[in-house]
Each structure stands twice: as C-alpha cells, then as structure tokens.
C-alpha cells in the first residue's frame, strides 16, 4: 500500500505549472490547433514575459492560466491546484483595454471583486484605498474612468487585479494602447509595484524592448500551432534603468528574440 502516492505535494503560493497543454479551436470548417504541447514552470515571485507574433496563442495561454478558458489537453496548476474557473483569490487579471466599468468611480471599480463576495463596505473601502495608494493613485478614487488618462486607467486596473492580494498577476498586453512615453513610465511603475508586493507576474506583450526590460525570463512562442521555441533568462541587474536599453546585454537578448520571430513571420 502506498498511502502517500495520491497526495499532491504542496506547491508554494504563486507557482505556475503548465504541463503538455494543447488548445484546439473547433470551427465549422476545420479544427485550428492554437497551442501544442506547451510546458512551462514559473517559480513564485518571478516576472515572466510571453512574446511571439500575432496568433501564437500567448493570450490564449494566459486566459487558460486565469481559468477563463479550458485547455483541450494537458494540465495547468496555480499554487498547486488546477484552475477550472476564475479564482480572484489566486489570480488577478489585467486586460489590454483597462476594461473599467464606466459607471463606477475608480474606487468602486477596485472594490468590484470584493463587492461580488459581499465583503463589508468599510473593509472594501480600506482595501481599495490601499490598492490605489500602491499604484500611485492616492486621492483619485472618486474620479470616473473618463476623467482619468490612459496610464491612470491601467493603474486602476492593476489595483483591481491586486485588491484581493492574489499571489499571481496575469497581464494581457496591458500597455499596448498607451503612447510610448506613458508605456515606459508604466513599465517602471509596474516593476516598482512588483518589487513591493513580490507577486508572480506573467506578462504578454508584442514589444521586444518591453519584454527584455521587464522580465526575469522571456518565453518566445511560434505562430500556429503555438509552441515554445525559446526560453531566455534576462541577467540584467535590478532595478532596471533606461541606460540598459542601449547596453550590449540588452541588444543581444533582443536580437535573439527577434531572430525567432522573424523566422516565423
């Protein structure tokens, strides 16, 4: 008898395990293989960036980690357990468009996931205040989204993702709609928030510069069927600075990613 064989070993909070995951989209005419045999380990507290050409399934992979979509084959675990449906206590998600509710104030938007769980008004308010302070929006809580700039909206969106203090934050091209300067500032802001909270971050982007600048590790994916073609460790020291962008290490890493993507484009 092996009584211990069936017990899942406890994984530390924030670990992500992707094992042989495949995703097939069924259409009326044909089956499209979006992802094929993707395996990936993200250790707690790491900042991992997924890059790849359009249609490589990087966003699909992220949606599956968020429990918003189920894989056709393989397994995904977050903090040691599968994620059959969204669980904001384990995973916070930030989308490309800030997707804030326009009829709610910044504060109420951040409180939204707590309100769904009938958390008391005072506790909600306190947690939302903390989250807004963390993202640098202290004092903007009463504003509606249309009264905020694009960068500020994404800050609110990050605050909303973090308000239940999940160990994992998933970000689907969160800065893609921002202008270049705001994008750089938001990158630095995100790194500051990440350093302050110690979350595991999985970040999807099209931008090679953004990928290398932000990441501990960069995962490069190929177009349909999506596969992992490279896995780079970014050895640049923290905190990252603007000067690193013109350094040799940065250039070498970016070139290596670019060669993969050019091949498949």
């Amino acid at each position, binding site marked *: 008898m092996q009584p211990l064989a069936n017990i899942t070993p406890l994984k530390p909070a924030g670990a992500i395990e992707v094992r042989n995951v495949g995703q097939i989209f069924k259409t009326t005419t044909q089956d499209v293989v979006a992802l094929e045999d993707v395996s990936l380990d993200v250790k707690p507290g790491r900042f991992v960036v997924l890059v790849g050409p359009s249609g490589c399934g990087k966003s699909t992979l992220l949606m599956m980690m968020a429990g918003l979509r189920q894989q056709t084959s393989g397994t995904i675990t977050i903090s040691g357990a599968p994620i059959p449906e*969204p669980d*904001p206590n384990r995973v916070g998600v930030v*989308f490309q*468009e800030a*997707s804030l509710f326009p*009829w709610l104030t910044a504060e109420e938007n951040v409180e*939204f996931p707590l309100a*769904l769980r009938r958390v008391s008004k005072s506790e909600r308010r306190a947690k939302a205040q903390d989250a807004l302070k963390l993202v640098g929006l202290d004092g903007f809580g009463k504003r509606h989204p*249309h009264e905020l700039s694009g960068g500020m909206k994404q800050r609110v969106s990050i605050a909303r993702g973090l308000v239940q203090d999940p160990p994992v934050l998933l970000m689907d091209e969160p800065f893609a709609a921002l202008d270049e300067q705001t994008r750089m500032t938001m990158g630095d802001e995100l790194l500051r928030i990440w350093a302050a909270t110690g979350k595991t971050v999985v970040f999807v982007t099209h931008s090679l510069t953004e990928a290398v600048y932000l990441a501990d590790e960069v995962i490069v994916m190929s177009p349909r069927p999506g596969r992992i073609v490279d896995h780079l460790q970014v050895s640049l020291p923290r905190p990252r600075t603007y000067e690193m962008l013109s350094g040799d290490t940065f250039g070498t890493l970016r070139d290596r990613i670019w060669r993969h993507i050019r091949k498949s484009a």
Partner: protein
Amino acid sequence: MTAATLRRLIVIGLIALWEILPRAGFIPELFLPSLSSTLMAGWNEAGEYGHALAVTLYEVAISMAIACGGGILLGAIVGSLPRPRILIMPMVSSLYAVPLVILYPVFTVWLGIGSESKIAFASIYGFLPTMLATAAGIQTIDPQLLLAARSMGATLSQRLVRVIIPAAIPTVLSGLRVGGALVIVGVVVSEMLISSAGIGYLISRYRTILDSPHVFAGVLLVLAMAIAFNAAIKWIERKAAIWQTGTRAGQNAAEEIAPTLQPAT
C-alpha cells in the same frame, strides 16, 4: 443672456403672439383662435374634456406598459442571443420602415372602434423603437467588460445585475423616450381616425363643425400630455444616472444611437 433664458423668452413671446395676433385681427379666429378663447372653450366643456382625457390616458397607460415592457423584454432576448437575433431583427427593422398607421383600419375591423384597437395600434407603434434600442444597448456592451467581470469571479446573475443592466440603461432609456412618445402619437392619431371617445376624437369632431377654439383646447391637452411624459422620462434618467453614479460615456452612446431611431411616420 444664457440659452435657457433666451429659450424661455421665445416661448413666452410665442404665447403672447398667440393671444395678440388673433385678437388684433391679423389671423382669422377660424384658423387660430386666441389663447384666451381656447382656454375658455376648454373650461366651459371641462366635463367633456376631462372624460376624454381619462379615456386617452387609460389607453396611453396600457399601451405604454405593453410597448415598453414587451420592448425591453424582447429586446433583451434578441440582444443577448444570436439565434433569435438573426431570425427576428431583419423582420423588425423592415417592419419599422413601414408606416404602421395603414394597419389601423384592420385593427378596427378585428377589435372594434373602442379602446382595444387604439391600445393594439399604439402598443405596436411604441414597441418597435423600444425593442430596437434595448437590443442595440445590450449588443453594444463591450465584451471586455464581461470578460473582466468573469475574471473577478462574477456569476451569470452578478454579470447581469452589475454589468449588463447598468451598461444598457442609457440606450434603453433613449428607446423608451422615442417609444413612449410614439405611444402618445399612436393613441391620439387612432382616436382621430376612427373612434367614439378620447381627446383625438374630440379634436376631430370639433374640426368637422369648424369649432376652432374647441379643437385647439384638445391640442393643448395633447401638448400637456407630451410635456408631462418628457418630464417623467427626464426624472427617470436623473434617477438612473444617480444609480449608475454618473455615466457620461453611456449617455454619449445613447445620444449617438438616438438619431437612428426616428419613426417612419
């Protein structure tokens, strides 16, 4: 001078002209009886007008309930489910282009010349814009908002109450405004065509005996009804805005949709 005071001055000026021009003999009393003689005529026949108003209001109230209730219900179904939408929308849109008043004689054959035929006609008349606006309001909800709500663990009913309804309210209200106004038009027009009671009937009857003051007294009552309806909608809009805690973006969307909802006749 602000636009509001100017507007008030114009209205006061028109009312003054209504009194002065017929009295001074510039306009024959047959074409336009003075305001005072119109009010006088109405006052002298207060019982008759009161009874007619009661009939008309009763018809308007029932038609409003059918048109708005049915319009919102069916609009919500058609807006959220693609299958009924494909089936029903082309029919409804082309029906909307038909001047429905041509159907009224048929209704009198089926339902008689009493209130039933008015209610049937006005209900259908007001139902179409309400339904189209509601369907549009629900269809144009940003799917990203629903995805975001799902990622925060919102159940189906929470998504309905906290996302779909507040997001659809501004467009639904703009539909109610047009639909409700058309209900009043429908009732009064059908009373004028074939009937034996109601304000429209009074207007039409006094016209045939060339009793202009009594015709205009009826016109004034219809005008008062339209103004009261408009005030009621404004009041609901204000309430909804408070409930939604200010949705300027939503109201803009409603205004963009409103011009496309002009009736065929």
